[in-house]
């Protein structure tokens, strides 16, 4: 028996967690580029350094994004990965699939690419990992044939994503899946043809649990919320109390606004809804007993991003409450206004949050015509360095 060429990676086939090395080897049985990828990775494990070069411009006809160019530095040694580009393929809302649809995708990818994928990339796309330059257009043509379009890359609207929403979650305060599909279709041009100062992300969560991490990473974050009272089902609350939940300790004492009281004898939970900030904690602990209210919509926040260039930001509230009903015109108009201001004022590779920081929230609110509200801030300013419009001082 010949000695293994990948002793370091072989070690990662042991253990209970699913092994990506096993997956690479399965693909390598059928595909030369997957085999070369495995061997190049073993070299990285030996040398403790990556061997991928910067992407040149690659793509498919009619689009400026959706394909990431990738070339090996070790192309002489591993020729099958000398060109090894990535497709970002736009996922269906909520990552729901039929097995037929997924098999069609596998057939296309086995025909044109490495047979390796990420389900899914962090942005939300299906990632098809590794195809040579001359396979890109035929692969996209076949993807189009089975109804899969490309996602975003570069300075465009990145592929938006959303939580499972009303598909399978009683917390969803609006139809996250439909909103996602609607804006994806509305903004196809912005998704496929990079023309912004930098990337722009929209992420959509149906409640403040924020299962798609909208607030930490998206320029425009949509978070479901409600304006009326938490819906209480007393039998459901009692069920939890009788089945191991210490409602005083686990719910009432952990409520951040102290707006709840529990009468253990009567098994009665009282909520002073006007003081509730809708954080979801009590609803999370008592899913049979409590549900979001009936007057539902979303809070819109903007500016979230990871560190590059000037540090990470969490999104800031700019619209405390917006109804979220089809055809979502109010939201789409706001997005267009925000993009217009950013496009006009943003420097190259300046994200929306960084631009707001540089020019001021006051300028931003004026540009997108939103009224100031105390819900936007944690606390008012503590410095005396503020501006007046000369018109106001007469």
């Amino acid at each position: 028996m010949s000695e293994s060429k990948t002793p370091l990676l072989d070690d990662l086939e042991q253990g209970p967690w699913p092994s990506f090395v096993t997956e690479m080897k399965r693909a390598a049985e059928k595909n030369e580029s997957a085999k070369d990828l495995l061997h190049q990775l073993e070299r990285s494990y030996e040398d403790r350094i990556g061997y991928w070069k910067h992407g040149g411009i690659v793509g498919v006809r009619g689009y400026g994004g959706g394909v990431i160019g990738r070339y090996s530095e070790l192309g002489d040694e591993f020729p099958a990965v000398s060109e090894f580009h990535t497709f970002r393929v736009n996922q269906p809302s909520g990552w729901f699939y039929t097995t037929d649809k997924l098999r069609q995708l596998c057939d296309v990818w086995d025909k044109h690419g490495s047979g390796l994928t990420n389900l899914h990339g962090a942005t939300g796309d299906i990632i098809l990992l590794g195809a040579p330059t001359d396979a890109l257009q035929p692969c996209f043509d076949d993807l189009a044939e089975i109804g899969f379009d490309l996602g975003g890359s570069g300075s465009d609207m990145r592929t938006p994503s959303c939580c499972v929403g009303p598909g399978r979650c009683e917390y969803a305060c609006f139809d996250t899946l439909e909103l996602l599909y609607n804006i994806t279709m509305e903004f196809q041009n912005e998704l496929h043809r990079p023309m912004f100062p930098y990337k722009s992300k929209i992420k959509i969560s149906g409640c403040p649990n924020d299962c798609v991490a909208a607030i930490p990473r998206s320029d425009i974050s949509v978070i479901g919320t409600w304006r009326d009272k938490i819906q209480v089902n007393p039998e459901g609350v009692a069920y939890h109390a009788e089945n191991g939940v210490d409602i005083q300790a686990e719910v009432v004492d952990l409520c951040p606004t102290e707006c709840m009281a529990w009468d253990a004898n009567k098994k009665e939970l009282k909520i002073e809804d006007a003081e509730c900030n809708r954080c979801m904690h009590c609803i999370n602990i008592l899913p049979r007993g409590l549900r979001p209210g009936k007057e539902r919509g979303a809070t819109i926040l903007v500016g979230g991003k990871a560190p590059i260039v000037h540090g990470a930001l969490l999104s800031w509230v700019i619209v405390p409450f917006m109804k979220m009903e089809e055809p979502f015109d109010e939201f789409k108009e706001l997005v267009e206004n925000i993009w217009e201001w950013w496009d006009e004022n943003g420097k190259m590779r300046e994200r929306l949050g960084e631009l707001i920081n540089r020019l001021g929230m006051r300028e931003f609110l004026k540009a997108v015509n939103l009224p100031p509200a105390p819900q936007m801030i944690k606390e008012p300013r503590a410095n005396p360095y503020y501006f007046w419009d000369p018109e106001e001082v007469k």
Partner: protein
Amino acid sequence: MATKTDFGPPYFKDMLPPVIEKNYGKWLYHDRVKPGLLKHVAESGDEIYTVRVGSGRLVSTDWIRDVCEIADKFCGGHLRFTSRHNVEFLVSDEAQVEPLIAYLKEHSYPVGGTGHSITNPVHTQGWIHCHTPATDASGIVKAVMDDLFEYFEDWKLPAYCRVALACCLNMCGAVHCSDIAILGIHRKPPVVNHDTVRAKCEIPNVIASCPTGAIRPDPKNKTVKVIDEKCMYCGNCYTMCPGMPLNDPVGDGLSIWVGGKISSARTPPKFSRLVIPFLPNTPPRWPETVSAVRNIVEVWAKHARKHERMGEWIDRIGWERFFDLAEIPFEVQLIDDFTLAPETFRSTPTFKW
């Protein structure tokens, strides 16, 4: 033939199982039945069971066909994925739930990742396919999750704990708000390849890409200079310009950040904070990183109250107590010196010994 463009993703409503189509938006409540199993009940009384399975994220088409076969057998040909790379098998016939779980266990699919667990770590490409990584991604996640597997499969923690990994400061995937974030970092300034800079880079963009102003023009030679003392190795210039590589086997490694959260439950979202500034790249199993992560998980699990996330626990006890309990040495790199540093300094003598 004109290429078809701008037709968008498959419409999700064509992908939904019949029970979801019927009860769309009409779900009433859910039970967390046991680790890896959720039961949702609709206003109509219909039920759907979800069996959650961890995946390695990097999967072959063979694996996709395997899970499709399982979904055909037990779920009428429907499945979904989560935002953290898990597969969810959606079962509308209760009688199929236990046979499905038994089948999955028999075929080594990990069932878990719901409730107070450590679910699948969000992670990036690393050495497999990224051009700026300071480390691998899938390999470290595999090593960490092999070690923490008991916490994926079982409910032994005070709250859930989100672990995430990014292989460089770009932090693809919002790892910066995780209970425990593992982040690849560089420690050496870029080594400028002047010929490449001249041939391939737009110099004003390279200069503007630097958050600390460490890159200066060198107009005489049509290239740039790096002021090494001002560089904090973010790699942003390299993203803009292939003539600024900073990957280095000795310089590159990992850092550990803790206490972030995304959800607004109880307390607002917050960033993870740096607690270990450097651990070496030690493939294939990165033992220093694996044991550092386990230590932090166990210290938190031992001391936190029920439902208290990592960051909420640390806020209650104070960072000085965290370093004490976790027996992590406090290093100077943990003190911020970027733009908003003063917000992290203490202005009161009320602290713990």
